[in-house]
């Protein structure tokens, strides 16, 4: 594990950064920028969500269609995160460790889901995996269709989080392990995976946050039947359309808080994994 610490990205060392205490300019700009872009809009959203009073807020988030939509959103998002954590890590592994013709092209393809307008992604998936699927696979208008669209949209997160860590990972550790008699699965489990866990968690948290808020790619493929295939984002859209912005804001706040909690939880685990190694270094 000793060399593992050297492979960690520098940013995580936080308080010991050499850039600390170099005036207010950096923090000032950062705070202003984040404030304008993130904090003020979120504060406005929070304020809006309780515009109808605290009872209004709870009435909005506990109404049966809202609860059903939130439950569906969190369920499919968790399924998507688990699948993409595994598959994203596997893809990152192949892209870093294996050599094959066209590797750079495949590497470039990974980011396409980010570039494609989500509504186009939804339409394309609908054409390929809908009622007229050329492959005979029809998952549209079901929860499987929602999972498919979200898998597509969130694919890059785990791959791109794991890739740099994996390529910086010192292979001598693995060789040392193997020379001491560890089998390949043991090397993967005891040496490689612990080094990747923080990156996998980071990628997964981003994928989850993206999933819960996703609208464009799922709206055409989800079916949008209240209580069955209506996601929270689509439900929120409906509330906006019905001139119930307060309810829309309230349900959005639930999505935000859940994402924040998950990000913090994952960060906690990531730190634990990291701290676990630091004393050795």
């Amino acid at each position, binding site marked *: 594990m000793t060399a593992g610490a050297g492979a960690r990205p520098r940013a995580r060392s936080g308080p010991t950064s050499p850039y600390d205490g170099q005036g207010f300019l950096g923090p000032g700009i950062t705070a202003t920028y984040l404030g304008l872009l993130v904090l*003020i*809009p979120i504060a*406005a959203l929070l*304020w*809006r969500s309780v515009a109808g009073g605290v009872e209004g807020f709870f009435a909005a988030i506990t*109404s*049966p*269609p809202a609860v*059903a939509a939130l439950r569906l959103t969190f369920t499919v998002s968790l399924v998507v995160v688990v699948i993409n954590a595994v598959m994203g890590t596997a893809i990152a592994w192949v892209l870093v460790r294996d050599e094959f013709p066209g590797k750079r092209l495949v590497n470039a393809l990974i980011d396409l889901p980010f570039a494609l307008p989500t509504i186009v992604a939804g*339409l394309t998936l*609908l*054409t390929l995996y*809908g*009622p*007229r699927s050329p492959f005979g696979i029809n998952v*549209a*208008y079901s929860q499987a269709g929602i999972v498919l669209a979200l898998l597509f949209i969130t694919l890059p997160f785990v791959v791109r989080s794991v890739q740099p860590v994996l390529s910086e990972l010192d292979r001598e550790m693995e060789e040392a392990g193997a020379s001491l008699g560890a089998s390949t699965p043991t090397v993967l489990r005891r040496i490689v995976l612990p080094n990747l866990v923080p990156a996998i968690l980071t990628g997964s948290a981003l994928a989850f946050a993206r999933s819960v808020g996703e609208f464009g790619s799922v*709206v*055409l493929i989800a*079916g*949008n*039947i*209240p*209580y*069955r295939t*209506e996601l929270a984002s*689509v439900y929120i*859209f*409906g*509330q906006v*359309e*019905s*001139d*119930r*912005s307060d*309810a829309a804001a309230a349900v959005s706040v639930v999505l935000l808080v859940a994402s924040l909690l998950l990000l913090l939880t994952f960060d906690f685990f990531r730190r634990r994994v990291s701290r676990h190694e630091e004393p050795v270094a």
Partner: protein
Amino acid sequence: MAVCAVAALLAAIPALTASKAAAAEGDEPSGTVTLVAYTTPREFYEEVIPLFQATEAGEGAGFEQSYGPSTDQARLVASGLPADVLALSLAPDVESLVAPGIVAEDWDENEYGGIVHNSVVALAVRPGNAKGITGWADLVRDDVNVITPNPLTSGGAQWNILAAYGAQIQEGKTPEEAIAYLRQLFANVSVMDRGARDSLTTFMAGQGDVLIGYENEFIFAQNAGQPLEYLVPDATMLIENPIAVTLTGDASGVSRAFVDFLYTPDVQRIIGQKGFRPEVEEIAAEFSYPQPPQLFTIEDLGGWSQARPEFFDPENGIVAGIFAELGQDAG
């Protein structure tokens, strides 16, 4: 607060481009018309505006056009998007702008009741109509899969649901029986998109046996080469699309002249050719649109002010109640 700022920003963009367009026309005060419309009549307006500009009244008039879902457009105008002429899908969207003082209270008190073109609620089926759909009663059969936009999301879809309900009343059912029909109908709906265009996409992707929508949309789809047939049920609802000149916009009179121009025989004829039913009766008579024997209007259901909250209130409306019941059955 943030919402206001965004709306103001959005509002500023067309205002800037509008003033530039007006300046480009030269020094004479010709006026610029900002048309805020729902999506469907876009083709129509793009054809008619140059014709208007070729008339004496419209000479030199600049045009700014904005198209989007009807209720969204009304909301944008309410939050500051400049508009001179509103061409929306349904009267309540125009009516919603009366309270903020953007539209005159008597906007619909003219010869045409504020309506510029019409259509009817129709049923699209697959080519050949293998399921033998002939009317509303077939939509609640066990083997029929129905597509309609969500009436809680799409103002336009409210026409569909009220047509289905009103047709039951026309056939002599009690309101309770008609609501029971709606419950059966929604149980057969497999996809509920956010608007009419998305529903057409869903239907053309191969989902469903019947798509509830507007006659003009289906004519438009057929003209675009989409493989679908449609039928007009014997009992169905007249869709009436409103138009209004705002109080807050252009004061030069060009906007009013433009709206008047839309009622001239030639323009009403173009409306008919685009798949709408012309509002001017003599021109409508030139077209061979099917005349359903039991055609009814929103007035037969008590008008929008009564029907909208009764059916589409997101919490206590009839439709929300049906969704809840069906949701509990499924869960």
